[in-house]
């Protein structure tokens, strides 16, 4: 199956139409127009969502994983490059047969890359995806309501 992402259908409306200004064509306002609704600007909706506890939780989960992750792999990579230039003697030290420290370090970079990729994908799938999807629905509902009230 190709399109098993649960929110795929929601995207299908409003695709492919350009009004020439480079911004998405406005969505059709929902039926809320006549009930008056809360009069919010679309921008305010995003500010409200940003301040909500649910969004702060998603944001901090993302940052708590990504910031240490980036620091770790960049530091490890820079250490590898600097060691290769400033300490070639260390890198040339044999480990087993023709394999030396430099080879092991290089292959270690491959290994950590694969491991971090796996860890990130797993973390995002288990800790972020569901909450982000719910926020996405809520936000889209709110912006639709806001547009309906103003336009």
């Amino acid at each position, binding site marked *: 199956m190709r399109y098993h992402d649960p929110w795929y259908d929601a995207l299908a409306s409003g695709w492919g139409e350009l009004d020439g200004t480079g911004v998405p064509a406005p969505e059709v306002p929902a039926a809320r127009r006549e009930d008056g609704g809360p009069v919010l600007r679309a921008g305010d909706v995003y500010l409200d969502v940003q301040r909500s506890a649910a969004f702060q939780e998603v944001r901090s989960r993302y940052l708590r994983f990504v910031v240490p992750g980036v620091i770790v792999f960049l530091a490890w990579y820079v250490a590898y490059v600097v060691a290769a230039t400033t300490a070639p003697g260390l890198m040339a030290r044999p480990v087993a047969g023709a394999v030396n420290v430099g080879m092991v370090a290089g292959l270690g970079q491959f290994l950590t890359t694969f491991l971090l*990729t796996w860890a990130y994908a797993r973390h995002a799938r288990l800790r972020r995806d569901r909450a982000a999807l719910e926020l996405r629905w809520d936000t889209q509902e709110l912006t639709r309501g806001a547009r309906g009230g103003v336009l």
Partner: protein
Amino acid sequence: MTGNHQTLALLLFSGFVAVTLGITTWVSRNRHGSAEEFYAGGRLFSPMENGFAIAGDYMSAASFLGVTGLIALYGYDGMLYVVGFLVAWLVVLFLVAELVRNCGRFTLADVVAARMSERPVRIAAGTSSVTVSVLYLVAQMVGAGSLVSLLLGGTSPAARAWTVIGVGALMVIYVSLGGMRATTWIQIVKAILLLSTTVALTVLVLLRFHGNIDQLLLTAADRSGHGLLFLAPGLKYGGDWTARFDFISLGLALVLGTAGLPHILSRFYTVPTARAARRSVVWSIGLVGGFYLMMIVLGFAAVAVVGPDALKKSNAAGNTAVPLLALDLGGGADSTGGTVLFAIVAAVAFATILAVVAGITLASSASVAHDLYASLRRRRAKPYSEVAVARTAAVGIGVIAIALGLLARDLNVAFLVGLAFAVAASANLPVLLYSLFWRGFTTRGAVWAVYGGLIPALALVLLSPVVSGSPDSLFPGVDFQFFPLQNPGLVSIPLGFLAGWLGTVTSPEIPDEAKHAETEVRALTGAGAV
């Protein structure tokens, strides 16, 4: 090289061209050429398909020909490219892929312009995207040139020129007729061809050395003439401090550049959601990682089997190491096996170049039409359809790339790609990260970040030994060399970040809280994503 090689390789390559042209006409039937269709292929590719396409975009002639050549000539120092190329994907996966998919529509400038005053930001980001693409294109063209001169024997300049022109013409046809949908399918076909060829060659190498990697490394070290030094860092970048800083500069550019490459960024828009973008990056990390591990084996095998003298004689920069290795693995120059294998490798390398070139051309024509044309055209002028402009832009970019490709033909392909990465990391990455993560970022900061990285990067290349002042440079006759390093990344990447910060703190503009909230919410949740 004998006539057999040529005929067979040309036949195989013509087969590939026929298949890809078939794909192009097939996917472009009954399409009306909306922007969504042309730039993003309808956004309906699956993560696996897009993962193969990203890998196809990334495993360029630079890796297949250039990196193996560097490993074969300089041993361990060539490996740095491979490690940098791979680790760079973590930057893409962690910081860029999902957020860019959620915030943008077609190009890098979309993400930045959502928060800022649109026109200056689009012009800046569009300019730097086109510059990066053209540099990258030149590298691929040079690869095509050195491949054909190997194939046709001798270094007939006319044959080289016509190949470069032919590649350019084909890429314009793919892009302007087929758009993103055709380009993506061509990438997928090419990625599968390239990976199977690489696996086959690696298996043959391992059979030749009875599965003993240790023996392979020792033979390589022995035949290289450097002994065990060949397996340790320092042969290419070991000498004085200039060379060492060059190495660090290159390493920095490689790891930070990928996330700023326009043709990689535009790939994330071909899938429906951020989750699909993430999964396609995971796919491509697996494919690219496996590919690079095999490239290391092939690079060492090339020197162990073919020997450094034959490699240097064929192409001084080492760009022809893999085809020569294939010839030997198949049984030598006069055997059927050698001829067939050589022809397959040459044809696959051509296919690689063609596909990568198509991908980059598409991304840069999107930048021209969607960012530059849309911002620069006169308000009163009759607006042409954006897609029509993009098709025309593809032709223009093709012409520029052909001309520069003919000029730069003697430089190592992987090295040229290193320059493209340095410019991408200096001009595109700072503005992208600032606009995704910095609440107080302003329009002036964005514009300064782009130009503050782009201009120093290009100026330092112009003043470097690559262009003048050394026997290997583009213009060996003149000397206006001022900057000692070949790769500008070490200086220009920090300058890009610094300029963005400086522009922001000095600008009178008050950052728009609501717009930042919108970017952040959209980036992390996907609300309102197209």
